[in-house]
């Protein structure tokens, strides 16, 4: 272990990697703090640049930028009542209420300190569980993988979305997009219509940039809401009172971090859903639930820890199985393939130094977040004044060039544009995007394992549940499918009981 660990240290503490991390931190803090630019968008914009880097600096850039962006999304939420990233939306009203009470520094400080704590908690879970899980997964055959992927996709549709039908439709669409091209077990060109550009399939990176950046730019272009007003003149010492909070709310911090890591690890649910769930949970278990919404710090402490821990949690299934835990890791998986670091249990056995380096990057990112975060808060007033009408067109141009850079073809820019417009229209109509992305990322893997399982079992579906782990995963998947029905039945029962009493 010590050999690879030493190698990992050497890779991470190389001057180039450190430089990349600092650059990515500033980039992430900026992107997170500007409303309308999300952490996922930061990742998508980084891909064309990381394309030209060695694997470890490339991953370093993404890990640091996303950790910073999820924290700095709290800043405009607190000062302008507009969340900088969706992950801060859950407690934006709460933070703004604190600001109006003159306690902006307490809200921002809690956001920063407990983001770091949550991030480190998630990292610890990643370090402990990912290798163990990988070891366990070494014995998996196509049957287990088939059920595992299906379970992941099922989670994305049924657990993390409140609209199962629309989620399911989006999943089918994503899986169908993954069918395009030669990349199927039969090696037959499907849905290419004679177009050679489509033989290799629809490019994942152009699609992601379209879905997460172009759709956001369209949303900005048609935004008619009036500009927000900043209420604070000066932010005081953000660390004052934080130790007191840590002593007052230890259970909340632990609960938020644990729930965040778990939600992050569930495919399709990321930092934003972790924050919403954790805020709701905080209110439910609080001794003073009536104070929530009036400028009460408890919920911010808990959900601020949750959204950052979710980031690390999402890497667990991404690294071990190649199943993304959120939209950021969906992009990361694309990057890992480009860098020949194909995710899967063997990544842990053949090149452990790379995995240790990823762990180290997470630790460093969450630690340097604190000093850099303080600087960002100090500069917040200036960042929030950056003219977005200049920024957005420049980002549009950057997206076009960045997409072109991957394969040097303008065809990909067309893919990006189409994905952006479609994502915008679908999102406006309450179709969740996450299941589609999971479908695109996992389509090839699902089909491959499905077809080879079918061949192995001679078309007999019972063969899919012959092995014990496969059977357990199958039962779990079916339970999740039935969960909407079960929940509805339970609700009905409690409702009828209430009416009788």
């Amino acid at each position, binding site marked *: 272990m010590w050999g690879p660990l030493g190698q990992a240290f050497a890779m991470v503490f190389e001057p180039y990697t450190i430089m990349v991390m600092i650059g990515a931190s500033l980039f992430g803090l900026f992107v997170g703090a500007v409303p309308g630019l999300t952490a996922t968008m930061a990742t998508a914009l980084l891909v*064309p*640049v990381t*394309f*030209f880097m060695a694997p470890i600096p490339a991953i370093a850039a993404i890990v640091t930028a996303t950790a910073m962006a999820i924290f700095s999304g709290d800043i405009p939420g607190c000062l302008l009542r507009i969340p900088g990233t969706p992950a801060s939306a859950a407690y934006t009203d709460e933070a703004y209420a604190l600001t109006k009470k003159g306690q902006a520094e307490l809200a921002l400080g809690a956001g920063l300190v407990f983001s770091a704590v949550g991030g480190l908690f998630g990292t610890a879970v990643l370090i402990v569980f990912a290798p163990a899980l990988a070891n366990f997964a070494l014995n998996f055959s196509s049957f287990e993988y088939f059920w595992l992927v299906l379970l992941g996709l099922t989670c994305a549709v049924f657990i993390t979305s409140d609209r199962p*039908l*629309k989620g*399911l*439709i989006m999943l*089918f*669409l994503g*899986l*169908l997009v993954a*069918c395009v091209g030669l990349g*199927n*077990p*039969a090696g*037959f060109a*499907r*849905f290419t219509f004679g177009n050679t550009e489509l033989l290799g399939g629809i490019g994942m990176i152009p699609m992601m940039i379209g879905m997460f950046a*172009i759709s956001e*730019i*369209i949303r900005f*272009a*048609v*935004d*008619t809401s009036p500009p927000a007003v900043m209420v604070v003149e000066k932010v005081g010492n953000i660390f004052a009172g934080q130790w007191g909070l840590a002593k007052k709310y230890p259970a909340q911090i632990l609960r938020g971090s644990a729930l965040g890591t778990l939600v992050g690890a569930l495919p399709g649910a990321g930092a934003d859903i972790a924050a919403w769930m954790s805020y709701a949970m905080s209110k439910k278990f609080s001794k003073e639930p009536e104070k929530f919404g009036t400028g009460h710090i408890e919920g911010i402490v808990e959900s601020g820890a949750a959204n950052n821990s979710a980031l690390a949690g999402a890497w667990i299934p991404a690294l071990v199985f190649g199943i993304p835990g959120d939209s950021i890791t969906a992009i990361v998986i694309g990057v890992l393939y480009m860098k020949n670091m194909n995710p899967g249990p063997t990544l842990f056995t053949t090149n452990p130094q790379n995995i240790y380096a990823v762990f180290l990057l997470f630790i460093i990112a969450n630690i340097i977040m604190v000093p850099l975060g303080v600087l960002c808060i100090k500069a917040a007033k200036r960042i929030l004044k950056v*003219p977005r*009408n*200049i920024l*957005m*067109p*420049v980002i*549009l*141009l*950057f997206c*076009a*060039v*960045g997409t*072109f*850079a991957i394969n*040097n073809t*303008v065809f990909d*820019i*067309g893919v*990006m*544009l189409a994905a952006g*417009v479609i994502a915008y*229209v679908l999102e*406006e*109509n309450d*179709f969740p995007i996450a299941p589609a992305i999971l479908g695109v990322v996992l389509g090839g893997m699902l*089909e491959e394992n*499905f*077809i080879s399982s*079918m*061949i192995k079992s001679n*078309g007999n579906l019972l063969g899919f549940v012959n092995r014990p782990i496969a059977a357990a995963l199958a039962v779990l998947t079916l339970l999740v499918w039935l969960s909407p029905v079960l929940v509805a039945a339970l609700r009905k029962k409690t409702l009828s009981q209430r009416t009788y009493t």
Partner: protein
Amino acid sequence: MKFNDAIFGVVLAALSAAILIHIQAFPKTPGQNVGPALFPGILAAGLGIGGVMLIARGWAVRASVPWLALAQWTRSPRHVLACLLVIGSLVFYILVANKLGFLPTATIILVALFAVLRVPLRWNLPVAVIASLVIHFAFYKMLKVPLPWGVLKDHIW
């Protein structure tokens, strides 16, 4: 721009039918019951069922949910123009970048978008030129991406 669910249902059902017809032409793998048509076939069938369910759902609420509810911005010509320009500028890039070259194309796109997004006039052209040069430098010089020179090909630097 909110459509009634039934509209999406019709589109999805049509897509599903088109896929199901298209995959009939896919070859069968000899000696096996699984071919390249199996997986997309299952997906298309699922999509079709989902589409029909959306049609049913949208039809049931047709009295209260219009077929198409336009958002507020569609009544503001400037916002409609901004939306069209965002999409149009990428189409423009795809069509002309190779012939015209990256720098002129990028500058034209930025000037147009800045104008519709109301960037002050005195900033418009200078920022557009500088931003195009910076992106060009970053990708062409530093990352060695072959951005086209187009009309400037005799003045490559």
